């Protein structure tokens, strides 16, 4: 299969993820969508790696996964903290940083 199919899928996944981040209000779903965007990127990396016959892209994808795992830890931690403080789980209502 040509690399274009993979790229089209990756772009679609990324667009879904970005759309989710922009329109959903629940922090949990936003986090999921972020993961989707990261994995879209991973897919593109792996596809290019395969096309070029070079393992660098796959290594990069592994690194992205590690970073994504870390990010999830922080993100989920925040969500748990928000819940424990009985704050609304709605990013539009959490506007304490307004300038």
């Amino acid at each position: 299969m040509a690399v274009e199919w993979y790229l089209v899928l990756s772009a679609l996944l990324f667009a879904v993820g970005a759309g989710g981040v922009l329109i959903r209000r629940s922090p949990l779903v936003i986090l999921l969508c972020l993961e989707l965007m990261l994995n879209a990127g991973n897919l593109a990396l792996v596809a290019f790696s395969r096309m070029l016959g070079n393992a660098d892209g796959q290594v990069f994808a592994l690194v992205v996964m590690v970073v994504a795992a870390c990010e999830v830890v922080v993100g989920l931690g925040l969500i748990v903290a928000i819940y424990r403080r009985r704050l609304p789980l709605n990013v539009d209502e959490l506007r304490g940083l307004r300038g």
Partner: protein
Amino acid sequence: MSATTYAWLVLLFPLGGSIVIALGYRTWSGRTAGWIGTGAIALSFVNAIAAFVQLQGEPAKARHLTSTLWDYANAAGLDIKLGILVDPLSVFMILVVSGVSMLIHLYSVGYMGSDRGYTRFFSYLNFFVFSMLLLVLAGNFVLLIVGWAFVGFASYALISFWYRRATATGAGMKAFVINVVGDVGLVFAAILIFRELGTFDYLEVFDRAPGGFHTNEWTIVAICLLILVGAFAKSAQLPLHTWLPDAMEGPTPVSALIHAATMVTAGVYLIARTHPLFELAPTAADIAAFTGLATLLVAGSIALVVTDLKRIIAYSTMSQIGYMVVGVSIGAYSAGLFHLMTHAFFKALLFMAAGSVIAAMANRQDIDRMSGFGRAMTFTSVMLIIGSLALAGFPFTSGFFSKDAILSYASTRGGMYEIFTVLGYVGALMTAIYSFRIVFRVVAGEPCSEAEELAETGHVVHAEPENPATGDVEDTDVGFPGPEHHIAEQAPTMRMAMGALAVLALIGGVLQIPGVDDAITKFLEPTFEDSALAAIQPSVGDEWRDLTIGGAIAVVGIFMAYLLYVARPASTAVLVRRLRPLHTFLVNKWYFDELIDVAIVRPALAVGSFCNRVFERLVVQGLVAGTVDVVRGAGGVVRTAQSGFVRSYALLLIGGFTGLGLYFLLSSS
């Protein structure tokens, strides 16, 4: 041990004493601190004598010993050492300073007895003596400036000793500020010397100076004038003298120590020390001599009219320092230093006697209120009379020989220097009158109520504590004078100190009697051997002629004082009425305070307030406020983006990246 080792020990003991007293200020009970302080200075004096003996053991040519503890700075041609110079001049000075200081410490042990700041007082006092000894022993200009500044600080601390008295703290600040003016002059002089000659070391400077400068070249004149600024500030010469009378706010032993015997002589010492430079700049030396002459006349005339006992003595100090400055400036080095020594004796004695009288008057200092202490305080009165005799130059007292030695030298040098002799005698007449004005007012006459009470009950009169200058009510806690007033009659240490000084004031002159001996000149010769001026010596006949004139003037002056203050007491009031403008002029101290106020303080204040109004308010504050406005305005614009909506941030991020990606995509194709 060599002379230099003893000289280091001379420095060590007062410094150690000061530190030990200060560290143990909670521990030392009673008069322990006083005895530690006195002991430290006594040890210092013993070591000074040892240094003197060792130095006399050297051959005359080799009596310039230097010693270095370590290098301050040694880089790029700069070589500053923590070093001392031991030569006849510095040994002479440490003998006078430590000797007289020892007696003043002894006096203070009793005098300050009831003061709550007793321990602090002796710590300051020892530190002061250390600073003065450092000043005279320093082997280069840098260490000299260190000692010079220490002395300034110590005098500030001691003048403001009663720190809850507003007048005392004000006087301390005044002394400190004027002294700093002098410090600045001295620092500039040292920098100029280094620029021209490349060294700070005394001996090297004096060695290179004759080759480095033409006579009266502007640089050497500038150096000498800057040195004079320093010397005049410390020695209270016109126009930097106004701090000295005010400094009488300090305790009386402080007046005796700082403002009679040691600190004010620093300027005289400095001119004598740098005499090779002054001989290359005769113009500067003449300026110094005429300033000294003006000071001795101005101060003498003021002393005739002020009524504060300590201030009369303070003005007489200024006047006598004027004689010394004239002496060392015109070349009568040994005579000037001889007068420095005898003056230290009789002036310290006068201050001590005055302190005793002031204590008996419960801290009041107005001589118009004093009279008839002759019976109540016989010992003090005798001391006062001896001190005044020596000050007036009564025949065969110490002041008689030393003052006339300066005037005699001036007349021998001839030419315009005859002026110094003639006007010096005018000053001597005033000296005799004002010194016996003190005696006749305090000792003679009907006993005042305080004297009567003292004579009858043996107790010092009790009075509510108050500031003698302003009449403000005070208490007797720390920061104000203590509750009890000690007079010399009753405190053995004070009697001892005054007795020793009285003997010295009477017979101190035997060191140098024309035609009989010249111990001081002989001793100081190695320091001044290269001086052409020191070689001029009046003949014995001339000296005795001048001594006779001086003695006659002293006797006439004392007789005039007798007529004015005892025989016809009403005549002073008549004189004051006849010469009203002159009296007002003198009582206001020639308006020097007002002159300095108009010439320096007011313009400085005007410049300051102008800078405040224009520069500070408009330029600086405008700049600051403008910056703030710009930043705040920009922030106001940018803050609208900071909405707090996480999703709008995400949109900005994604939109931004998309835009950026599109831009590169389009621009690359």
